[in-house]
Structures are given as C-alpha cells and as structure tokens.
C-alpha cells in the first residue's frame, strides 16, 4: 500500500474519555494494522510540523485516530470540527506481521491507539488476543468499552490503583506469558515500557513486536529524524517501523 497525500475533511472529532479525542477524517484506501497517518498544517496560521497518529479504526471512506492532548499539535487538533479541512498522508509504516498462535497485546497509556487495529484484526480472523493495558490512572485507560468485546480477556493496571490492579503492565507479565501459552506479543507504549516488555518477552522465548514512537518530521523516510537503534544501525521509525522485532531492538551502531 503506497502512501498518498490528500487534502481531506474532518468527519467527526469527539471526546474519547478525559483529555482524549477520536477524530475521523475522509479517507479511501484503508490501512493495515500498525500503520499510521501524518496529519499536517494543524496550526492554520503558523508553521507546524505534522504529527503522526496510529490508524485506530477505519472503513471504506474514513479513518479514525485516537489521541491524547499533550502539546501544541494535539491542542490544535482538538479544536477541529466536522467539515474542517485536514491535510493527511498515509498509510505509512510497516504495520504488524502475521502471528502464529495466541497473542498478548501490551498497551501503555495512549499506546492503545497503536494496538486497537491489531486487536480488531485478530478478532476478525477468529483469534482474539488477550490484552494487558496500563496507565498512571483510570482516565488513561481509554476505549475499554470498545476493547472488551474484541479481546479474549482484558487485564487493567493503574499505577495509583484507581482502576484494575495496582501496578504496571510488566507486573506478572512473565507469568502471564507462560500461563497463557502465548506465542507472540505486540506492545505499544512509552519507551521504558517497551524496553522492559522486550526483555521479559526475550526471557520467555516469546516473539515480540514493538510499535515505537519517535520525533518525526516527514513520515516518508527522507528527513531521517525518527531514527531508532535497531540491529546495529539506525532505522527509520516511519518507513522501516514503526513496528520492530524486540529481538533486534535497542542495539545501535558500533
């Protein structure tokens, strides 16, 4: 699927939990689970770099992204209304590879946006994944109502104990992997979480796919700004990722 760039239109931009929004824009052509879109010109009267958003859900005519308002870009995005112009390009990146056997999804905070399409694709294929989803507090665990029906089980963690189990997604993860007979794992969340998950998966002999986030300017593989250390070199998160095999992740040049 080669990327296209279009001047699209916002279909809806609705609250999706505290400080989170779900934005739907017109888009034909679809995407694969784990791919993302760049949304640009979010500040209408001044220069702004585009922002990358995981493709959350889509149909024949539109794509949805879920985002948390954290900075300048998402602040502007949250002000968009149905009918507004929206510059979008995608679908970008490699997406998740096929897995064999039961899969565990591990999400940290807004990282759930990078895994939702994976959960949906697995459910559609009849192999529903199990989910472990953690955040600092209850309001970080967005989309539970949409997630519960498409996963085989969901375990929630909050660091403050306000919802689910108190702690982090890595608590008991090794045991969960062993007990559940999981053959593969897909994770998306903050970098320290991905590092920890990668180690646990490696020890358990479970193949893990990590969806990473990196500062990114173009999304097209040319600016080389989103490089991450993978397999003894720097790889571009935008075109060689954003999904990387945990076995090779974190190893830079020399």
């Amino acid at each position, binding site marked *: 699927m080669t990327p296209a*760039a279009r001047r699209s239109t916002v279909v809806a931009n609705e609250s999706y939990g505290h400080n989170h929004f779900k934005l739907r824009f017109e888009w034909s052509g679809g995407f694969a689970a784990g791919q993302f879109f760049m949304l640009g010109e979010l500040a209408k009267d001044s220069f702004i770099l585009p922002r990358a958003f995981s493709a959350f859900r889509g149909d024949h005519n539109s794509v949805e992204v879920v985002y948390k308002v954290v900075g300048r870009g998402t602040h502007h995005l949250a002000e968009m209304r149905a009918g507004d112009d929206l510059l979008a390009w995608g679908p970008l990146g490699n997406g998740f590879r096929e897995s064999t056997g039961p899969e565990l999804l591990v999400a940290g905070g807004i990282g759930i946006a990078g895994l939702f399409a994976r959960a949906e694709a697995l459910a559609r294929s009849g192999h529903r994944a199990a989910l472990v989803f953690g955040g600092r507090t209850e309001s970080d665990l967005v989309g539970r109502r949409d997630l519960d029906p498409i996963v085989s089980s969901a375990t929630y963690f909050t660091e403050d104990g306000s919802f689910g189990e108190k702690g982090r997604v890595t608590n008991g993860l090794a045991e969960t992997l062993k007990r559940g007979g999981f053959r593969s794992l897909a994770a998306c969340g903050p970098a320290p979480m991905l590092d920890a998950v990668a180690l646990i998966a490696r020890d358990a002999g479970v193949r893990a796919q990590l969806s990473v986030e990196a500062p990114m300017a173009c999304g097209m593989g040319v600016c080389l700004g989103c490089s991450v250390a993978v397999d003894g070199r720097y790889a571009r998160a935008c075109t060689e990722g954003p999904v990387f095999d945990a076995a090779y992740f974190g190893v830079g040049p020399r």
Partner: protein
Amino acid sequence: MTTALDLSVRVGGVDFANPLLAASGCFGWGVEYSSIFPVRALGGFVTKGLSQKPRPGNAPPRIAETASGMLNSIGIESVGVDAFLAEKLPPLIGCGTRVIVNLFGETEDEYVEIAHRLRGATGIHALELNASCPNTAKGGLEFGIVPDVLRSLTRRVRDANPLPLYVKLTPNVTDITASARAALEAGADAVTAINTLRGIVLSAESRRAVLSTRFGGLSGPAIKPIALAMVHQIRRALPIPIIGCGGITSARDVVEFILAGASAVQIGTALFANPLAAQEILVELPVLCARLGITRLADQIGAAAL
C-alpha cells in the same frame, strides 16, 4: 487572451523547467515521494548528502520543533558512493528532472574522491558541495567558514569533475559574501544560500539540550528573512548565480527570493510540513505571476529595488 508564462531558469550551465528544486536532506534519493507527486514536476532536486563511505548518522533525538521551524542534527546519515552508484542513481536516469548530487566529506580528499567517482556517471546534472553542514564532528561546516579553506576545496572538486558545481554556503559566518567570493574564484558555477543556522533547543525540565548533539541546524520560515538578506548581499557583491534556500513555503516566497537575486530556489522543511507543498507552489506560482504582471520569471532575478 493569456500570455504564455515562462518559468524556466538557467543556473550555472543547467537549464531548469521551473525554479523550484527540493533541497538536500529533504527529498531523500528522489524516489521516496513518488506516490505523492511526480518528481518531474520539480525543476530539480538535490540528493541527501553523499559521503565516500556509508555513515550511520548521529544518535537520536535528531530533530526538535521550534517556533516557525525545526532544529535538526542528522549528521549526514548516508549510503556511501558505492551504494549510490549501484542502487540510488540508476532509478533516477530519465526521471524527467534535474538531479543534483550533494557531496559531503570529513576531509578534503573525501570530497575529491566522491567527485572523481561520479565523473562520467549518467543521470547527474550538477554537483552541490556541502561545506556547511553544522552537525558533524568533522567536515562540512569546517570547510565553509574560512574562505581560503573553501577556495581550496572548491578548486579541487572543480578539477575532479567537470559537471556544473554549486557550493552550498553556511550562514554561520560574519560575512557570507567572503564565502561566495571564495567559491566564485575557485570556479564554482553557482552558490546555494543558505544552509541551516546553528541553534539549541533546551528542556527546562531535564536541563539538557533536546538533541543528542546539543547543537542542531535551524530551518523553516524562521530563517527566511536571514536567507533573503544573504541572497541580496551576495547578489549585490558578486557576479555569481544564487540558488536561494531558507524557509520557502509558498509561491510568494519563491518570487521574493527571485526578486532578491536568486536564479532558482530550494524548498526543504516545507516538504516535511506538507508533502504536497511543491505541487501546490507550482499551481500557485503562475497565478501569482499573472497577478504581478510577470511573464518571464528569469527577467525578475534581482529586480527588487533593494
């Protein structure tokens, strides 16, 4: 009746169908944007900086957003001249636009070696000498800040390859006309002005620079007035064609640079912000020219009453 508009320009012996080129480091190896817009729409493009041997580039983080621009410190991550000739250049033969190869070296000999290796290669229309990258421990900028050093490097590259030679200048100097003069005296056919300005993005929380290398190069609309001033200074001082570069995002910006003295322009950061920017500028440019009474763009080079 409409008058035919002539957007063609000639820069240092190369004819361009229009004045809009993509800048080095902002258009990869010329194929990455092919599903977004046809490369032949551009007047030309400049490749990512080409080194003699493959280079891994700097550790992340490499970019940071700033007010009206961005800071980058990529550090010339590049494939090396062997892979360029074997893999990157062949798809560009017959691509329908002008291909300019940007050369980067850590030593004078490296630049000369790359220029020599590219001698006679099909599909290259000009060379651009990168003596202005602020993000490498060695090479790049250190060749661009002392005019005598730049003169020597330019002369040796000039002798190593007969293709038209453009020298990309750094704004991180006291007097950019001294650099342009050195390039001119050493036989450069044109200068590209300007590369990025050195800057720092600092985090108050971490008390550290955001980029791994502390310093980076500032680009984007923030530097446009500086670039325009330097194009004007060079134009007034010297008889050398100028390719204007720095913060161009619109057809209006293109016309401003040409009026200030540029024969052609490069866009870079604007392509990151909007991959349709080049295409949209080329739609907008004829409309703007008509409104401004311009029928032949080349007649407007340096025509501002500055």
